């Protein structure tokens, strides 16, 4: 499903590479944590998978597509098969929960009728039934992140990327979000999560890949934070 082959990424003006000759494979339906200290290069992996940045060397394959060879005009379409959640939610403040999710559908050309059918469904799935018409500032942090998850999942992507999704949430709320991601994983969606939240990693007992200074130092099937 996801394949990094000898990937090196050096940002311009950086003295050392963010990722240094990293190779890793992730199967369909897996739930994978990337852990490591700040600046270890784990967020660069998310950016590479989304093709926000291109690798300096090596090959990135997602959904059996060589992302590195993707023509730039094909990138938008490629991104529709990937859902993405961030630490800062990235919701539109002047739109309700419903409108935030519907926006993601409308801008890729789905009709309002489709949105009316699938948006309430996915909001129900993330546990926001009845709060469709609240604005982000009327929702708690955990609820806002649920909207973000709903937006990422509404297209039924094959892969869900989560960049520190619990970074702004208290421990209890974090666990609720993790339950949600787990549920999504059980529908067959591959989940890749970047985090340095040791509690969560230890509770989930999933595959853990630890990165330090741009290199993989540990890859464990049912790992803990260490």
């Amino acid at each position, binding site marked *: 499903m996801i394949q990094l082959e000898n990937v090196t990424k050096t940002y311009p003006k950086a003295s050392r590479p963010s990722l240094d000759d990293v190779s890793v494979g992730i199967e369909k339906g897996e739930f994978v944590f990337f852990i490591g200290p700040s600046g270890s290069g784990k967020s660069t992996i998310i950016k590479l998978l*989304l093709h926000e940045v291109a690798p300096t060397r090596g090959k990135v394959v997602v959904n059996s597509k060589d992302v590195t060879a993707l023509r*730039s*005009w094909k*990138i*938008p*379409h*490629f*991104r*529709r098969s*990937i859902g*993405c959640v961030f630490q800062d939610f*990235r919701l*539109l*403040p002047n739109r309700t929960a419903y409108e935030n999710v519907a*926006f*993601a559908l*409308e*801008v*890729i*050309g789905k*009709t*309002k009728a489709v949105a009316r059918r699938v948006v309430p469904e996915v909001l129900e799935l993330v546990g926001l039934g009845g709060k469709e018409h609240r604005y982000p500032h009327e929702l708690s942090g955990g609820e806002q992140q649920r909207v973000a998850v709903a*937006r990422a999942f509404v*297209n039924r992507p094959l892969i869900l990327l989560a960049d520190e999704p619990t970074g702004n949430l208290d421990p209890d709320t974090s666990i609720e979000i993790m339950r949600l991601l787990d549920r999504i994983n059980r529908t067959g969606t591959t989940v890749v999560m970047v985090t340095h939240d040791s509690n969560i990693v230890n509770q989930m007992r999933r595959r853990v890949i630890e990165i330090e200074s741009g290199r993989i130092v540990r890859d464990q099937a049912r790992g803990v934070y260490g």
Partner: protein
Amino acid sequence: MRAKYVLNEVLVGLWRNVTMTIAMIITMSVSLTMLGASVLMYMQVDQMKDYYYGEIEVSIFLREDVTDAQREAINQAIEQNPLVLEKTYESREDAFKKFQTLWKDSPDFVKSVTPESLPESYRVKLKDPQQYQSFADQIKDQQGIQDIVDQRELLDKVFKIFNAIQVFALVVAGFMALAALLLVGNTIQVAAYSKRREVAVMKLVGASNWFIQAPFVLEAVAAGLIGAILGFVMIFLIKVVLLDGRLQALTNILTPIPSENVWLMLPLLAGVGAGVSAITGWVTLRFYLKV
């Protein structure tokens, strides 16, 4: 749905930044007015050249004390010259009649002039008006010639003035166009900044590039089109109010500007305005909204 979304975004975008939009429209319209005026003038000068050069004559004014023999010799020389297409002789009386009709609005001035004070002349049309110099060289040694005047020289002076005005209008149009371009670029950057959250989400969920860029580019195109229409209205008003109204006397000397030429400016200005805005907008976005 998508067309409606894009249209709505364009209107909201133009309104959100309304002072900048107005500045953009004004500079665009002034620039396009200048461009239109200068193109019209270009067409006009071309037409006038065709018209006047067809009518052009070389005038050979004879001395007051010219003898019959000298006059006959000059006549012979002109007749035998291979460059000449046709020639007419204008006596003092003919000259006076012409003078009377030309200045019929100032009878006092006409009264003060008698046929004797006007010179007699030969009016010569050349096969090729460009050949003036060699013709003058061949004829100028004849006795009894006061002066040889080529109307082309006079016309050339007039046309030089027209050319200068035209170049001036083009230069002004160019500078205004540059200002308009910078304003378009700036407006689009402001618009893109104020919608950066939407743009980030759109990129994230995989909205196509044209869908992200279209509202911005169309915003610029709409402003360009409005500017073009205003510019056209200005040119139209100049033609109707000034040239056909107050300055009609001037327009009669010059050849009149045909209405169809003025109407031709509408598609020209609209095309230039919209095209330039679209290209500027698109280029700005390429730098500003990286995928």
